[in-house]
């Protein structure tokens, strides 16, 4: 680069950083008109500037890995310390020099740690040294570095210990985070060793990466130089309590270890109680282990700050960044475990090392169970990052000459692998991509149900673009099988039928993580991508590492979308199986919640009292696992709505839509929430948007008609519902809504016709029987209406029958006592029908009951103002 060029770069950079990040692209676009290369160079440096964080902010000296070369070693090769003959110096540090040596009696290799000369006079250092000897020699465990002996050489104390070959975890982590499997293995060993240590009433007090040694897959805890016995506090679990009171040991037991105000431990790994200089117990070690595991999982310790005081503040007051934001490949379960270990309040942490170890073991078993199926979701993630890249690169900055891509469909990938297994794989990958891209703000991704219809299509992008009203499509294929697989993806612009981006991902079972990061980076670079961190995080949400869980989940969604009781019960089975395969799979809990929510509706017809509670529990579980999952919030919103918690429902549904603006079902439910509050126009707008997102879905289209009906726009409702029936003449949900619309508008004969069909195609669904009964009554066929009422009564001895069904018939029969009798029941169990009573879509249909004081009383109890 020429000096004048560099000066240009510098000037633009200086100007750009003074602007808000959002305004920089426009500024550079203008400033660099005609000089694309200049713009890219400045943008690239700006992108790194945004990531600079604490880079180079700590002076170089603090980066030095070990002490600078110190004094020459005191002991020479061949020198004799009692029975030990020195072989070579191994290293030196603040607490002494270490040599390799042979024990001439046993002819074994040992390591000797010699206390520095200047500390020989230092009573505190001496005590600490002896403490290490005593503490560690009391422990005999494969995961604790064994102390053999203690001695003195010319007034300098030394320690004889197991000679280890390998490296410390700290050294290992200099190369980056550990793979999760290795991390779990190591963590369980350390936790096991700590369990033993704690059972002897000893707290290590300085667990950190530098004190965990890795010797050929075996983890060893080092350095008991700070270890202390602690007075067993109340409330510790049995494992530590049993032997924790061993006060007769070699160590004195005491609460405070050092002078007030002085700290012992290594700052970034200290527990809050350690930082405060309070009494500590085993749980402090678990915090430090949590901090160590956090670093092993993400590459950085949880509390990374410039100074010791800042670290202390962070330990005391700041919540660590969720691990998966730093390393998206980690499992949720591991994240949960580490964050639990890092709870500031010791009472909320793991209470014993064994408890922690048990959770780690569960996490490991879950991984092994999903085992080799894990890779598929990785490619999904890699592809996503890449695609997110092109999409964000082409759209929000607006600098591209091409029209922006605002609506997009992901077609199912073609399975060219020759294996039927590949079908699931292909669907799974496209589904993952669609689901995650949909989370990008400003981008609409056509719902799966609509895109699925183009599986194997020969249509051109422009045709599909017209039909789905999208600007671009993503299509592709998978080829190869078993061990090696290639996924090809292409983004095609609908306006031109020209590919904008294409990429192949080669998958080797062994190198998935590499593929993921490399592909993401390569593509990102090629496309000169700038993903904002929040977008990256959203894209990185893969959901589960278990292919089995994901496939089962997809099947669940398939049946859920059909909405009949039978199908939903089947979906429940699949979602439960998905949870079995991956107990930390938030989306599966959300799916389960959606099923329970639907089962609790009048139309599907199971007991709301029973299923709504289940729905709330499942939705909360989903949110607990992943607060960023739109489905969880939407399901909770749905449940709250019919629990008459209007504000709570609105909150959750809006949150869901913030998280995933393309989530069609959440839009439908939000529309319901608006309808109930009589905000008709907004409700219609919301449900129309849902349909745009999912243009070919029958259930969504039916719900559009349903909203028009509630908004009192029965004509439009009728048109919409007839469109659905043009596609599927026997679709019961559209039939029953159309029947309702006909009743509202006094077209009773037509109502009877469509409702009879609805009853047949829904196999005698009680709510549909009830609506038919009401239509009979209105049409003057009162005897038939009464027969249906009796039939519902009989049915209710066999199964749950919603009281709303009978209420409909009573309404048609204009039998108010009967109506309110059933309505009372519906009210008690909070049938979703009740929530809509204030809407009064059809003054005529409800005229008689509305004027009844019982109706007004009910509205009051519902919490509405009377209109």
């Amino acid at each position, binding site marked *: 680069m020429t000096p004048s060029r560099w000066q240009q770069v510098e000037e633009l950079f200086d100007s750009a950083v003074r602007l808000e990040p959002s305004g920089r692209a426009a500024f550079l676009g203008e400033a660099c008109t005609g000089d694309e290369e200049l713009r890219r160079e400045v943008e690239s440096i700006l992108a790194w500037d945004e990531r600079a964080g604490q880079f180079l902010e700590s002076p170089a000296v603090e980066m*030095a890995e070990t002490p*600078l070369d110190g004094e020459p070693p005191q002991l020479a090769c061949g020198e004799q310390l009692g029975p030990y003959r020195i072989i070579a110096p*191994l290293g030196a540090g603040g607490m002494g020099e270490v040599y390799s040596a042979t024990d001439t009696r046993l002819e074994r290799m040992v390591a000797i740690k010699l206390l*520095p000369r200047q500390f020989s006079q230092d009573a505190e250092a001496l005590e600490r040294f002896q403490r290490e000897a005593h503490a560690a020699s009391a422990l005999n465990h494969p995961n604790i570095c064994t102390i053999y002996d203690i001695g003195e050489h010319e007034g300098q104390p030394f320690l004889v210990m197991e000679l280890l070959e390998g490296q410390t975890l700290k050294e290992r982590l200099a190369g980056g985070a550990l793979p999760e499997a290795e991390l779990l293995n190591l963590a369980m060993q350390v936790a096991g060793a700590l369990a033993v240590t704690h059972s002897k009433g000893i707290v290590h007090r300085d667990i950190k990466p530098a004190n965990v040694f890795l010797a050929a897959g075996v983890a060893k805890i080092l350095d008991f130089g700070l270890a202390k016995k602690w007075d067993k506090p109340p409330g510790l679990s049995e494992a530590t309590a049993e032997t924790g009171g061993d006060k007769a040991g070699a160590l004195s037991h005491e609460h405070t270890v050092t002078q007030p105000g002085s700290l012992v431990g290594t700052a970034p790994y200290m527990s809050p109680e350690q930082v405060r200089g309070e009494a500590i117990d085993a749980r402090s070690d678990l915090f430090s282990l949590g901090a160590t595991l956090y670093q092993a999982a993400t590459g950085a*310790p949880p509390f990374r700050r410039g100074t010791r005081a800042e670290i202390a503040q962070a330990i005391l007051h700041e919540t660590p960044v969720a691990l998966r934001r730093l390393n998206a490949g980690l499992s949720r379960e591991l994240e949960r475990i580490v964050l639990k270990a890092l709870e500031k309040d010791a009472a909320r942490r793991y209470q014993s090392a064994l408890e922690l170890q048990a959770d780690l073991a569960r996490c490991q078993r879950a991984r092994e169970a999903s085992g080799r199926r894990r890779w598929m979701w990785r490619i999904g993630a890699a592809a996503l990052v890449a695609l997110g890249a092109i999409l964000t690169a082409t759209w929000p900055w607006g600098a591209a000459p091409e029209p922006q891509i605002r609506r997009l469909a992901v077609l199912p990938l073609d399975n060219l692998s020759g294996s039927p297994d590949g079908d699931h794989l292909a669907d799974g990958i496209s589904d993952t991509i669609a689901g995650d891209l949909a989370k990008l703000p400003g981008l609409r991704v056509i719902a799966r149900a609509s895109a699925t219809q183009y599986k194997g299509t020969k249509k051109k992008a422009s045709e599909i673009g017209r039909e789905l009203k999208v600007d671009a499509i993503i299509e592709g294929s998978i080829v190869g099988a078993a061990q090696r697989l290639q996924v090809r993806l292409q983004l095609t612009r609908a306006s031109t039928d020209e590919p904008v981006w294409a990429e192949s991902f080669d998958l080797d079972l062994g190198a998935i993580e590499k593929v993921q990061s490399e592909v993401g980076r390569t593509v990102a670079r090629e496309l000169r991508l700038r993903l904002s961190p929040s977008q990256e995080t959203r894209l990185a949400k893969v959901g589960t590492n278990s292919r089995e869980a994901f496939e089962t989940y997809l099947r669940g969604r398939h049946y859920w979308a059909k909405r009949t009781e039978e199908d939903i019960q089947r979906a429940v089975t699949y979602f439960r199986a998905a949870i079995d395969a991956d107990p930390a799979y938030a989306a599966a809990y959300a799916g389960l919640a959606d099923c329970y929510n639907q089962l609790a509706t009048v139309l599907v017809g199971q007991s709301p009292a029973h299923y709504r509670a289940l729905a709330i529990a499942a939705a909360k579980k989903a949110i607990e696992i992943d607060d960023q999952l739109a489905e969880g919030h939407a399901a909770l919103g749905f449940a709250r709505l019919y629990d008459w918690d209007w504000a709570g429902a609105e909150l959750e549904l809006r949150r869901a839509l913030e998280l995933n603006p393309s989530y069609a079902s959440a839009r439908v439910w939000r529309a319901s929430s608006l309808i109930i509050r009589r905000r008709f126009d907004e409700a219609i707008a919301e449900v129309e948007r849902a349909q745009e997102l999912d243009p070919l879905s029958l259930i969504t289209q039916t719900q559009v008609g349903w909203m028009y009906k509630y908004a009192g726009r029965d004509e439009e409702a009728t048109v919409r519902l007839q469109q659905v029936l043009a596609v599927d003449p026997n679709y019961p949900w559209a039939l029953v809504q159309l029947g309702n619309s006909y009743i509202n508008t006094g077209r009773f004969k037509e109502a009877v016709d469509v409702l009879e069909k609805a009853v047949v195609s829904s196999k005698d669904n009680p709510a549909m029987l009830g609506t038919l009964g009401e239509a009979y009554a209105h049409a003057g066929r009162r005897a038939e209406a009464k027969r249906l009422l009796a039939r519902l009564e009989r049915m209710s001895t066999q199964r749950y029958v919603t009281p709303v069904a009978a209420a409909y018939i009573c309404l048609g029969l204009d039998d108010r006592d009967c109506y309110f009798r059933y309505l009372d029941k519906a009210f008690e169990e909070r049938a979703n029908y009740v929530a809509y009573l204030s809407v009064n879509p059809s003054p005529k249909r409800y005229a008689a009951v509305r004027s009844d004081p019982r109706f007004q009383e009910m509205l009051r109890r519902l919490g509405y103002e009377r209109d």
Partner: protein
Amino acid sequence: MRSGSPLDITGLLRRWSEGGQAALAELTPLVYDELRRLARHHLAGEGQEQTLNTTALVHEAWLRLVRVKDTHWQDRAQFFGLCAQLMRRILVDHARARLRARRGGGAPRVPLEEALLVSEARSPSLVALDDALTALSALDPRKGRVVELRFFGGLSTEEAAEVLKISPDSVKRDWRLAKAWLMRELSGAQAL
């Protein structure tokens, strides 16, 4: 103090500032030894309680080597500048030696507890950083110096400004661009 009286240092600094390159040649080993000695002392002696602080180190070297009343601020700034350069050499040489030792490998290693509170940031190796910094200096020598002073010398923005005789704002601007540039260089990402 091994060699060189305070007077020597002050005189050498003065002569160097007047353009005497021979003075620099004499000055360098004196300061280098002192910095090394101080660094070693800090690193080996203070144990876990102490964060080694380059600024403190350089100031200490200054106090030890120079008779303060005989000097004025230009000498001090110049001295700090030299220290930063030398600290870079000491630390990078150390890192390179360590790297060689590792590659030579084979010897079993037993680690000791950390003697200093290391910034646990996933920091680039000093060796790679040194290379990148050399590349930056080729492109823009002043930014190279700013990084040397701030990062290796541990100097504050104001001190660095004093050394380079530019405004603190210029130091800040150089520092920001230099960091982003170095990060990109170290990431392996290609410049466009």
